[in-house]
């Protein structure tokens, strides 16, 4: 059976294809102007990689902020639930997930089955989200992906005084004007990011078994700073790319829904039809 999870975020879209109990293929693309377009293109790309077509999908669940606009999905589930489920599948010891996306940051606590118990989220301010790093990389004139490598060359990291993404960009501009080394600025940026996230984490508290997901988890300098600030080691997600955890969770929910639907069909008494959209 082929199950697909599709996560349409604010900056990127991800699709994961699972068959039985393993990931066959996944794809990540930059968002297109409309969420349905992003969903279609990223899913098509992943299917092509797996030499499949849309007809081969048995069940698809969508998540992310554009989740309700995806025509080929049979249901949508909030990204908070999906991150919990995805991270739990990747590593069963996970109890807290720090997800840093393009335009928000969340801390999600889950039980031993991966179901959400508590969460806290920042979607009001760009500080502490991917947009912060993106803006900073632009001012420094480096690719977002190179920010971590640049900061590892730092001898004495700077301390940023501004939290706001826009104001911090100007602060960095002034530092560049003053001839401060770019690697020291990059290290200061990654540190500022980690400190902002740690404030969010402290609002909800942590339970041992902390995983970090989302695109920002690929910036090892931020991850290392955050682990220092929080005084803990993150648990590994194994082979799973941290950016696809939401989509993976959606695919796992797709599998669960499909199996439940089969069970209902098999039991003559359970007659209620499945609904198009169910919110968990």
């Amino acid at each position, binding site marked *: 059976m082929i199950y697909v999870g599709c996560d349409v975020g604010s900056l990127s879209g991800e699709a994961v294809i699972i068959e039985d109990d393993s990931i066959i293929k996944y794809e990540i693309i930059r968002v297109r102007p409309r969420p349905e377009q992003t969903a279609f293109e990223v899913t098509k790309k992943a299917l092509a990689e797996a030499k499949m077509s849309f007809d081969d999908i048995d069940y698809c669940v969508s998540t992310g902020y554009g989740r309700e606009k995806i025509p080929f999905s049979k249901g949508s589930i909030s990204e908070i639930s999906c991150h919990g489920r995805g991270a739990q599948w990747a590593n069963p010891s996970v109890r807290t997930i720090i997800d840093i996306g393009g335009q928000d940051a969340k801390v999600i606590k889950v039980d031993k089955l991966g179901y959400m118990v508590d969460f806290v989220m920042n979607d*009001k301010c*760009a500080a502490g989200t991917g947009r912060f790093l993106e803006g900073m990389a632009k001012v420094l004139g480096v690719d977002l992906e190179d920010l971590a490598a640049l900061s590892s060359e730092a001898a004495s990291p700077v301390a940023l005084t501004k939290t706001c*993404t*826009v104001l911090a960009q*100007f602060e960095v501009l002034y530092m560049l*004007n003053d001839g401060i080394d770019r690697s020291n600025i990059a290290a200061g940026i990654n540190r500022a990011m980690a400190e902002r996230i740690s404030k969010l984490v402290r609002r909800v508290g942590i339970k041992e078994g902390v995983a970090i997901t989302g695109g920002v988890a690929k910036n090892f300098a931020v991850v290392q700073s955050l682990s220092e600030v929080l005084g803990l080691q993150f648990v590994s997600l194994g082979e799973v790319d941290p950016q696809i955890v939401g989509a993976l969770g959606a695919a796992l929910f797709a599998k669960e829904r499909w199996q439940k639907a089969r069970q209902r069909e098999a039991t003559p008494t359970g007659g209620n039809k499945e609904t198009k959209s169910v919110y968990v």
Partner: protein
Amino acid sequence: MLILGCDVGAIATKTVIFGDTGIVAYDITVNNGNLKKVVEKSVDTAISKAGMLLECIEVKAGTGMGEQYIPFEHTTEGIIKCLAVAVHRIHPHARTIVDMGGLITTVISISEKGKVLEYRTSDKCASGSGFFLKLAAQALELNVEDLGDIIIPCGERAHMGTQCAVFGESEIVSHMNDGEAPEKIVAGINYSLGSSVATMINRLGGIQDIVATGGVAKNKSVLRAIEEILGMEVITLSSIDEQLVGALGAALCAQQRMQQ
């Protein structure tokens, strides 16, 4: 006697040459690239417009967040005092000044004599700043100067759900993708900015006359939004460009200091 006043802000550098008859010449240069060079250029332009040489100017004064980039000897004064002195000189009835700059909005309450009583500044967050308008204009592919000309009935404004300048830019893009009319989006942006500024004015008591300065004060639609929310009139100074008030204040402060 001639006094040079230079205000190095976040987005632009402003220079005025102030003589016995008032402002003789001025310049506004957008900060692009090396700040020291921008300041030099702005000062040179103002001086040559006045037909002068830097050596001929007896007093030089600086203010603004980039004041340290002024490459010659000068007296310095904080921007808050500069604004208070200049606004009081031009409009003695002013009791509240709303300076809406490129990055920071400052609300200052002043006494009948022009003394600073209290002030609030938005130096933690760029939500109500001119930079937000700049990002918005870029997203909409419009000139930032033209955003203020759009005034439409309040019921037709596009809703802005976020205060954050960075997220605001994305929200504008999704409004555009949803086919919302650009003028409705612009009206929504102006209203959102006006409402964050109005909140700041309210916190300081909002005593009239309220005078708006800074680049954003050129945006009439933002001013109307503030008036609509406060139910009070917000005026601009007709005798001077809104962006030059800080630089003029620097010159006036230097003049006061000499007279003492």
